[in-house]
């Protein structure tokens, strides 16, 4: 299944989808009632590898939060059979990737808001969409940035986005 096929899955095609979203809300709302305080959660045994992985994901989720966002980050680094979460780009030509290290594929989910979190704060099209969507950030980058992606990105960012 390629990414285009996946995108098609996320487009609103059927009335049934409305019920699917409602069901999702119902379950997540039910779950919220059962949430127990963190101190009563039993410790979950994690291997060193799992701990390290979570540490990186935790850190990455911190970096995605600029001010008001709430995000969750997941990664997949096993298997290449289906690319639902993210596409895998080919490695550099002539270089054989080490077999134990798979491509890093992260998916980030910011919280959706019906209105800006604060008066005067600019709305963000990525967090105010009407329907669920999986977005490649490369598809909608300001031209000044994409045109200079091999140069001093910070300089360009400060000049055009600050």
């Amino acid at each position: 299944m390629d990414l285009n096929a996946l995108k098609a899955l996320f487009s609103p095609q059927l009335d049934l989808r409305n019920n699917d979203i409602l069901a999702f809300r119902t379950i997540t709302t039910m779950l919220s009632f059962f949430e127990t305080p963190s101190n009563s959660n039993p410790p979950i045994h994690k291997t060193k590898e799992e701990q390290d992985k979570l540490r990186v994901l935790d850190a990455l989720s911190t970096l995605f939060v600029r001010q008001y966002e709430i995000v969750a980050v997941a990664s997949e680094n096993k298997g290449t059979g289906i690319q639902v979460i993210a596409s895998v780009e080919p490695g550099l030509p002539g270089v054989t990737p080490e077999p134990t290290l798979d491509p890093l594929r992260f998916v980030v989910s910011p919280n959706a808001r019906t209105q800006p979190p604060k008066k005067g704060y600019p709305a963000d099209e990525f967090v105010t969409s009407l329907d669920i969507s999986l977005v490649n950030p490369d598809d909608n980058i300001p031209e000044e940035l994409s045109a200079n992606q091999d140069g001093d990105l910070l300089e360009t960012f400060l000049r055009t986005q600050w």
Partner: protein
Amino acid sequence: MHRRKESFGTHAWMLKMLLRRLKGNQQSDYDMTSFLLYVIAASSDKMHYRITNGPSPLYFECLVKLSKTSFDFMEHPDIRSIRPDGSNRDQLFLDAIPLLAECATTKIPNLLQQTMTEDKSFNIYNKDTYIEFHNLLCELLKRFRGSLGDLISLKSKDVKEIRNALISVQIMGDLLWTMVRSAASERHLNTINHLLEFGEGGVVPDREQEGDGQGDGLDTEFEQLKPYNVSQGRPLLPWQSYRDWLRLQTLYFDASEIVAQYIASLPPSVNITIKILSPSLPDTKMLPWERMLLDSRYFPEIPKYIQQPSGKDLCDYLIKFTADRPDTMEHNGGAENDGRGSKARKGDGGKAKNKGRKEGESSKNTKGSGMGFDIVIDSIRRMQDSEVVAMDLVNLDSVVNQMKGLKNCLSPADDIHFDNTCQRILKLKAAGLTSGGRLTLIMEILEMIKVLKKRSLLYHNLRTKSLRCGENFTGTRHCEACIVSLSYLSGIATLGHNDPLVQKLLSEFLVSYFFFHTLLDSLCQ
């Protein structure tokens, strides 16, 4: 006025592009600095908020005030500098000391002298250095806060000026981070533990009192800093609260280091991709829970070898959960035969509050039993204040009576938790309870009542066969729910993408297996 121009997508793209440059041997100091400066540029508003709001002014001033007083040194042999793998928790700070000795206003000759010793078993934090350590910490905190303030208030569009302001934050933040992460800082906060101030009853302002609209993420962070909050079964001591507060201030520096180190460990051939899963906007519409659980599209039959109940089993369980309980009949006299009256009672705002209400008023109450629990929570919270504790302890019996009036708002399955909570409230009467012990017990009781309140709301809402969206459900949970659902479904597809059922699941963004199991686990707790 908000500086932000870039979208979340642009932010994700910038992080991806800058991280790609840190891979393997490609990493240079320049790339690492660019990455860190970008993180500061993107997140400076939040950094500034953290150091100027919540408990920060109080904690800040308390530390600064101590610079002007004297306090004794204490040994803390239980806090070790050497990690099990042999590395030194103080090493980053040790490395920074020569630079600090040169640039900081605080004179640190003893700290500098310590770094020159050849004895590898020494502790950088000792009777010769502890005052220098404290003063240096205060200076770095001040400078870090000042540099953030300068950056936030910068009006210039000149890139060089912006970059300089970013570099100031980077330098101060980096140096503060090396201190904060050290074992020496833990020893120091332990030393001054008895001098640390943390506000009335250990409580920092509640979310609704802050009113700055920063979102639940930040407020949760401040909530977690409350001294004597119970975390993993233990109360958070004042020095730990200050430690966590300091770590919060330098969280972006910590996160940048962790991610950069990890990316640097990857060979250049490994690619990094980031995609954004944007959830649909929430609203108040829901699918009736019974219909949802019995719909095979959402809760398809699962193979028996998995040994999990079906959606129907779950539905039956919840129906049982909401069934009338015998003691409710006793509480409400003869009206239970009236279906309308019975329904109203289940959602009643708690007997303690509604005792004096006219008949018919309670049937209009759609808020569930939360109000009654809120009254008890307020009563318990007031006991955190040491000045009124003597008076409130006299009223403990009345608080327990208020609690007992709420028992009918819960499922019989909660009786054991309910009784346990009442017993703990009465424990507050125990003679010889220390101030710290009392605060810990109060925090435990509050946690337990909050859980009971939530469960009573579910009890109420399930009975009326509708749920509310949003309240009690954090944005973090929603994000995680969306992402895990998608991830899990992709895993199913990997295992059997030819299965028509799996195709159907994927084609409609269904939510079944993962949430089914999570919901079940929650119910079984």
